[in-house]
């Protein structure tokens, strides 16, 4: 293994702490959250920083290391500079390729990321266990399936070892240590490597001319990238308020059931 290629799949997500209450009340993916910055979730930050540290560790062993950070979600421009300044060799923004965006399309997202990774070649893929909000953490698992490589989840720390990588991970309520050979996909969970390194203004200035790669759809034939996305599911946000009413039984039962049906939004005659 003369050259080690490490890729990190990540996603910048809206900072929902900054969404105003009025927007929560009518929340949908189509809503304008343009005033909300996009940030990295903690697991993705762990994956990005862990990749850089692993790269340094392998480089110290005399290996040539290449690192790439790629995403299928909109990529804030300041983050591009941060990633280059932090030390990533390549940054790929695939967000323009999935019409309608990557949300709630884990299979298509995994296929797209997989196609890019296959074209680049890879040894190790890292990802956060979950990027944020409604993300169910399916993309890494589907990506492993797409690429036909093993997946180790809930990793906390990673270190090079002869022939591969040593993984300390959470298995349910207990911790375990594994040794695995590459290629491999690992998701980072509650890692002590909690944040992407800070970069100085000087380092950012030095990469100010570098841009994220934005491949054309033609580079990935057969993925159905031009297909229309039917749209995200309808969102319901649970509210903290509850309504409690006592409905009398006995002779009043039919009337009570009708009232209950109305409260639950049922059609007339439909039983609650």
């Amino acid at each position, binding site marked *: 293994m003369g050259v080690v290629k490490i890729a990190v799949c990540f996603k910048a997500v809206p900072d929902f*702490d*900054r969404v105003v209450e*009025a927007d929560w009340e009518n929340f949908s993916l189509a809503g304008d959250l343009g*005033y*909300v910055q996009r940030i990295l979730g903690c697991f993705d930050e762990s994956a990005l920083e862990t990749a850089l540290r692993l790269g340094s560790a392998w480089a110290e062993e005399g290996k040539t290391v290449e690192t790439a950070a790629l995403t299928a979600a909109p990529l*804030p421009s300041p983050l591009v500079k941060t990633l280059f300044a932090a030390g990533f060799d390549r940054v790929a923004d695939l967000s323009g390729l999935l019409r309608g965006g990557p949300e709630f399309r884990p299979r298509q997202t995994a296929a797209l990321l997989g196609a890019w990774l296959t074209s680049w070649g890879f040894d190790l893929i890292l990802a956060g266990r979950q990027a944020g909000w409604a993300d169910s953490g399916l993309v890494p698992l589907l990506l492993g399936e797409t690429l036909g490589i093993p997946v180790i989840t809930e990793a906390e720390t990673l270190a090079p070892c002869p022939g591969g990588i040593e993984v300390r991970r959470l298995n349910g309520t207990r911790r375990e240590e594994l040794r695995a050979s590459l290629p491999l996909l690992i998701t980072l969970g509650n890692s002590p490597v909690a944040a992407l390194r800070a970069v*100085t203004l*000087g380092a950012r200035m030095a990469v100010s001319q570098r841009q994220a790669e934005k491949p054309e759809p033609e580079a990935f034939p057969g993925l159905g990238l031009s297909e229309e996305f039917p749209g995200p599911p309808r969102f319901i946000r649970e509210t903290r308020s509850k309504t409690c009413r006592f409905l009398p039984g006995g002779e009043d039962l039919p009337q009570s059931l009708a009232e209950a049906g109305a409260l639950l939004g049922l059609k007339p005659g439909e039983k609650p």
Partner: protein
Amino acid sequence: MDKKDIIQGLQALLGEDRVQTAPEIIRKASTDYIGFRQYERFDGQDWVPKAACVVQPRNTAEVSQALAFLNKHGLSTVPRTGGSSVTQSIEPEEGGVILDGQEMNGVLSLNEQDMMVTVRCGTPLEYLENYLNRHGYTGGHFPQSLPLAHVGGLIATRSIGQFSTLYGGIEDLLVGLEAVLADGEVIRIKNSPRRSVGPDLRHLFIGSEGMLGFITEATLKIFPYTPETRWMNSWAIQGMDQGLALIREVMTTGYRPAVVRLHDAEEVQKMFGDAVPGGSSVLLFLAEGPAPITAAIGQGIREIAGRYPVQDLGSRPVESWLQTRNDVCYRMDEPVYHKQGMVADTCEISAPWSAIGEIYGAVIERLPREMPNLVFIGGHSSHSYVQGTNIYFTFSFLVDKGVESARPDYMKVITVMMEETLKRGGSIAHHHGSGKYRTRWMPEEHGSSYPLLRKLKSSLDPRGILNRGVLLTD
């Protein structure tokens, strides 16, 4: 006087339960949130001098007794209440005493006829504001430290709130007070809408940082609470110069929105990311008061904004800011920056319109040149006046030479800000107070009026026991 005698003497006066000697209580009472101290703490270092004890009086009489004792024995005393200081102002001297007014809290009276509320020094500001809101009023004072700060400390540091353009700073809100001088003498300054009876003695204590007396009680103005009639809007504008010109025009034309903020492009990237055109600054405005007034202010500001190259961003950015503006207080004890190996903090200065843009530009240009480990430098104007405004610099740097380098590197950043401000006639502290970290620049800040401060000190605290190290150089 040794530590044991100090503790025994105070316990004899006030009772054993009023004098705390547990190291953890002393450590907490000495905690200051200046950036380098936060970094040191998270790095496992505690380089703050250790006080002998923390005295917790329950009333003015006990404050008086305690101070008379401490003065008699010439013991270094640091007054504190909420402990939200970011300037080292509440760090004690080794072996000194912390006089903590936290337990002197609560509302003494609400005078709706005269629109005043009287509170004890340890009353948390957030509690007071919630209390007033329940009665249909607001105190009009909303510093970022609202969830942490107490009334006594707010007066002592000459605090200001985010709605200051309408309500003013604490100096505009304080009607009267009670304080205890270093020798234990209790003085009261009565409540009056205005007086013409000589110098305004309230100002001996507003911003004194506890070096001229211990504030025990305060009467503050109250106002009708009308959040439902607020007007809010925001605009993107290219460049801080254009933004400063716009807010100057708003202020000099005579409009009084409650909030006038201008964030530079660096801060905007952090707050809004790509949601705002690259390189833009962002203006946030909020007007409060009766609906006809807020509507008129909104219309006036819209007209002025229309004369500048702005992009209307609507009200959401202001609402979002309003909702999250004090969140930092809840993360003060979390190693948010330490885990990235950084010190992050803020520093506020002020200047007339003719100088403020130059000061901002000089600091932004100079710091990256002189600090290779600088990670971030940005700033915003958040408190505007007819004559000028403030700049609240935000910065972070990598601690790349070990934890010992955090403080000297921090002071390098501050030095640049102080020098560029003083050079252009600005003031080196707008609302956090001087604390102990800015004291060395005080002679230049005050110029020929500085001896007055010394004379006041020698008159009111001749033994120099109160909060040594703030405002006065040795």
